[in-house]
């Protein structure tokens, strides 16, 4: 069962990563096929496992004391675009262009 172009487009939007070429799409198809083997297993009554440490109660609330910070300079060092203490982003709230309008391999499908 092939993945529809709509879903592929949707994935490119969600992941903000492109399929690049037919190999990319084929790769996904194979990955799904591989994963489908999971359905052979009977998991009735089995709880999903989030963490192998579920019995050990790792998570705890620590005291609300400031233990680190004041590293603005270091954190800004690795950013390419910045102004004073701000990371600069291009304009937001502009959705990624629709399939027909953006440069994507999927257009040909």
């Amino acid at each position, binding site marked *: 069962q092939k993945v529809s172009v709509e879903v592929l487009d949707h994935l490119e939007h969600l992941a903000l990563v492109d399929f690049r070429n037919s190999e*990319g799409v084929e790769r996904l198809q194979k990955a799904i096929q591989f994963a489908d083997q999971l359905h052979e297993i009977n998991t009735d009554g089995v709880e999903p496992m989030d*963490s192998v440490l579920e019995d050990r109660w790792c998570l705890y609330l620590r005291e609300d004391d400031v233990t680190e910070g004041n590293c603005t300079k270091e954190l800004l060092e690795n950013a390419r675009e910045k102004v004073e203490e701000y990371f600069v982003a291009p304009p937001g709230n502009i959705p990624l262009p629709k399939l027909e309008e953006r440069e994507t391999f999927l257009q040909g499908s």
Partner: protein
Amino acid sequence: LPLKGGLRSQVSAALKEGRVTPTELCQRCLALIKSTKFLNAYITVAEETALKQAEESEERYKKGQPLGILDGIPIAVKDNFNTTGIETTCASNMLKGYISPYNATVVQKLLDQGAVLLGKTNLDEFAMGSGSTDGVFGPVRNPWSYSKQYKKKSVPKSRSESEESNWVITGGSSGGSAAAVSSFTCFAALGSDTGGSTRNPAAHCGVVGLKPTYGLISRHGLIPLVNSMDVPGILTRCVDDAAVLLGSLAGHDPKDSTTIQDDFMPFELPNLTDVSKLSIGIPKEYHAPGLSSEILSLWSKAADLFKNAGAKVVEVSLPHTRYSIVCYHVLCTAEVASNMARFDGLEYGHRSDMKESTEIMYAATRREGFNDVVRGRILSGNYFLLKQNYEKYFVKAQKVRRLIANDFVKVFRSGVDILLTPTTLSDAAPYMEFIQEDNRTRSAQDDILTQAANMAGLPAINVPTALSKRGLPVGLQFIGRSFQEKQLLTVAKWFEKQVQFPMIQLEEVKRHDSGVFQHQKFFSFS
């Protein structure tokens, strides 16, 4: 001579007695790194800072106040651990030029004990792969490709061709670290292990590769792949050294909420002589399709070794083994999709010049920064996490994970102390052969014996066992109970002593650059 000694037994003594100094050790390692550059094990060599650390260590030894066994010991760190002031690339264009503002906890711990950080080692891009062939800095070459043992057994096509086309992979993804330890350029190296990434290259490079119990060693500063499975891995030349490293790294870290809070007591390994109280389990499902007859035979011999020494050796069953790779595939890609979302060009790493909108910039940055393997896993992961697929794939995989973890619990409850399995399906493949299949296929094949331990969070170790008929290392894997590293390593050490794995005999190497014959500088080992 100290270049080949055990840390606790030989090197530490030599340093304390002044028979060798930290700067000498550091300089020798740096020289060796230069002369083995063709292995491509290192991405960054931090020569200046290493020498400075060595000098500081030397001062401490002169005063008779070394910080511990690791003081002055040259180590290497996989390039997916943050290291202050040193580039951390994860072998990806996405992080080229990224200079970490902080040290990963494990790196900090090593430095606090006086270890000398020689540099960052090569890997598959973002630790995704089982060959250390898919990073932007090129593949890592297995030092054994240049060993007398391998050359003796390989059929040269022609003298000029032999080295260039015959070299074998290190395995991965911590191939650079494994190669660095195997070629004596450092005494120990940090790797990471999510599906076998420390044990696999350890097996192919003939070194000890330890995957600790999940939750024992801090992941703070290890650029995450799969938060629920990643662990820092330890690569050394002998089991005793792995115990030393473990002792200095394990323990609760307030910066990593997935580390257990129990106190960790570093230990020295006893010299086990009596194995009669031990019960070794041989999981029959690990006789996986594709397992080479050589390794099968070695595994069987190892089982006999224990039996003849008086241990109880029993066949056991881990029935869900054959599904663990599928389960891993889903959980891994799902967590990767989430973890890779942080790379958007805004705060660090590569940033695209496209600037029409945030989304366009993000998409272009990620398009430019990630290789096919990474992008493929992100897209697959996002697919499995779609609303219509979440229950069917992600939650289903989480349920299967519990079944896999329970398989181990049942076996350990039945009285088995340690499991003995192969680590890899075969010895290291020639690079030219390895790249015939794509990364995902290779990973699925190669991870099959190692990743169930990651699913269950159990400690596991590769111990180099013997040379294959091609003259390459083959290792066997021991899997232990959660947080029972002492028992695991004690048994591993006993086994190591029995098998007496041979030392690599690295030869002079003639390098031929593409088409043009050039004789490069040689290195030699005393």
